[in-house]
């Protein structure tokens, strides 16, 4: 195999994994934009997306399109419960406390999933079949194209939503200063609930798209969440475009590292680049530079 073809194939493989990281990273960014907290249950939303899809599509035999919608709604409801329940009821609204609540929620979700769905890995068929397409002699799965497409579509729509619509601007206002947002007449609680639904729904979409390629099990959320979180940090926490760039960069670095250096150290290489970026530009590649020293 000629070297440039090999490189091209590595890039495709990196772009595929990278866009799944990006899709998860966007979910982190949405919640950050509304509440300023890091939602460590984001990976569980992704895992639940796969699990609900398996139940609706494989077990209950609902057609794929309706099963997709039902899954997104179900996971959005889980997100709503998380926000309306423990997060809104918490006495202290300290960021650190809220973050710890999301950590606890992720453990609870993982445990319940283990009880309800069992311990086996599961999968669902790919949306457009499993035979690879050949582009310029390099193989690419149709599912990868779905993931690229959905990631780009989601980030474009979210950018418009947060910049141009009243609701989107209101959510950003809540994040900037909750007290002033209340004074300006913004229904803060409704905005927070909405942002959790949105981010859970997006996580569900990521889970549905990922499952045919990677399979899903109750404990898959932690690793997915970690990679998505790293991608979000790399791109600049809170920035939608940054999340996409960070995700794709992380995926491509992993793939090139595994391909050309050593498959044993691919994660090491990817995370070293993450550390280097953070040393040079602590706010991430596209970060707004709002970090304050205390």
């Amino acid at each position, binding site marked *: 195999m000629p070297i440039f073809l090999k490189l091209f194939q590595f890039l495709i493989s990196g772009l595929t994994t990278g866009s799944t990281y990006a899709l998860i990273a966007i979910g982190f960014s949405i919640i950050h934009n509304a509440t300023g907290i890091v939602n460590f249950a984001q990976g569980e939303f992704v895992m639940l997306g796969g699990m609900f899809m398996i139940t609706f599509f494989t077990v209950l035999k609902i057609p794929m399109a309706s099963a997709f919608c039902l899954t997104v709604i179900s996971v959005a409801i889980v997100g709503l419960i998380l926000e309306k329940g423990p997060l809104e009821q918490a006495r202290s609204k300290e960021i650190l406390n809220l973050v710890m609540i999301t950590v606890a929620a992720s453990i609870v979700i993982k445990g319940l999933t283990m009880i309800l769905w069992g311990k086996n890995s599961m999968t669902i*068929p790919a949306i457009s079949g*499993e035979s690879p397409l050949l582009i310029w002699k390099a193989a690419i799965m149709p599912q990868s194209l779905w993931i690229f497409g959905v990631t780009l579509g989601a980030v474009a729509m979210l950018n418009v939503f947060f910049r141009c619509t009243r609701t989107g601007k209101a959510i950003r206002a809540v994040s900037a200063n909750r007290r002033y947002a209340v004074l300006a007449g913004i229904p803060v609680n409704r905005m927070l609930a909405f942002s959790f639904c949105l981010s859970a729904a997006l996580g569900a979409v990521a889970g549905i798209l990922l499952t045919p*390629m990677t399979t899903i099990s109750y404990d898959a959320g932690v690793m997915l969440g970690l990679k998505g979180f790293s991608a979000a940090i790399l791109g600049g926490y809170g920035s939608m475009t940054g999340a996409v760039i960070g995700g794709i960069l992380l995926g491509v670095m992993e793939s090139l590292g595994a391909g050309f250096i050593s498959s044993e150290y691919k994660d090491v290489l990817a995370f070293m680049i993450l550390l280097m970026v953070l040393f040079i530009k602590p706010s991430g590649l596209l970060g707004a530079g709002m970090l304050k020293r205390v």
Partner: protein
Amino acid sequence: MKNHVATAVFLACLWIFSGMAPAAAEPIKIGAFFDLTGPSSAIGTPTKLVAEMVVKKINDEGGINGRPLQLVVADDEGDPTKAALIAKKFTESDKVAAIIGPTRTDTGMAAKPIVEQMKVPDFMTVGGDVVIAGGKFGPFHWTFKSPQRTTIAVKKIYEYLKRKGLQKIAIITAADGFGKDGKAALENLAPEYGVSIISAESFQPTDSDMTTQLINIKSAAPDAVVCWTIGKAGAIVAKNVRQLDIQASLFQCHGLPDPNYIALAGKASEGNIMPSTKLMVASQLPDSDPQKKVILEFIHLYQDVFHYDRQFPINTHSGYAWDAIYMVANAMKKAGIQNEKLRDAIENTKGYVGVSGIYTLTPEDHNGLGTDSMVLVQIRDGQWKLLQ
């Protein structure tokens, strides 16, 4: 007055019962720890269920010379630290006569120094050989394992490759204890069978995409690809092999024959070859096979009596706990539960016909299985077929 009578009667009863208790056969405790949660829970949980099944069977048939067995179950979560703590608890506070488990090679290595020090026989159900390898891996006087040695599975694959004249192979192995064990065996045995490894790649068992490594393998153009891992990673490798249109046949290790593998890999599993216990192809075995009767009895109990297959369909691992407990129980019947005597009796097991093979243990070989205990199976039309 009435109260005094009641107290006296109560005390009398207490005295009678406490005097009677030892006569009513005190149970023999066996510690059993597996991955009930964590990355190998899909293997560990059914192992525990089978252990409970065997213990019930042995007790129904009269126990150990009249004394019932009692399992003390624990979950090591696949974590070596927890495994070491549980081994300590079993030997120090539970005072078990013998131990079954754990599930993973890494947890087995963590528990081994403790059982060796406390002098309690431990029949492990781990895949890797290092637990009974000796040398730099420490003594294995008290440690046994029921699953086939990695080298047996490797020999089985290499015999086939040699027969088919496939010489150049690529290997892709997991970067955990089990995968490294497989890699070492693949590399050590290759010259003996005239096989040359032209490409060696690895991956983390939690990885979700191995295309990059397989691109390197594809460009090396091997005759066959051998993958060494357990769990879902094996299915992802199969999918990626198909995705990259690699024509060389894919061999998986002896840890993957499992209906769930076909469910996860789907069409990509078609044609895959792997060494397996005879359990996967029981109905295709010739009647002359001495194990057939035991295997069919095991399947009957597992599926028709206990209905474990509703949650965990039978896979190649299912029989290992059965064999481990039976060998320990047989030794107890012969030699009692004094630790030195029990250990010697286990080590003297000769020709035990089990679900996973016919075991003949020696002081050097604490596994006791040969290449005749395994068969090669191939997936054809989503079914397991015995490969002649």
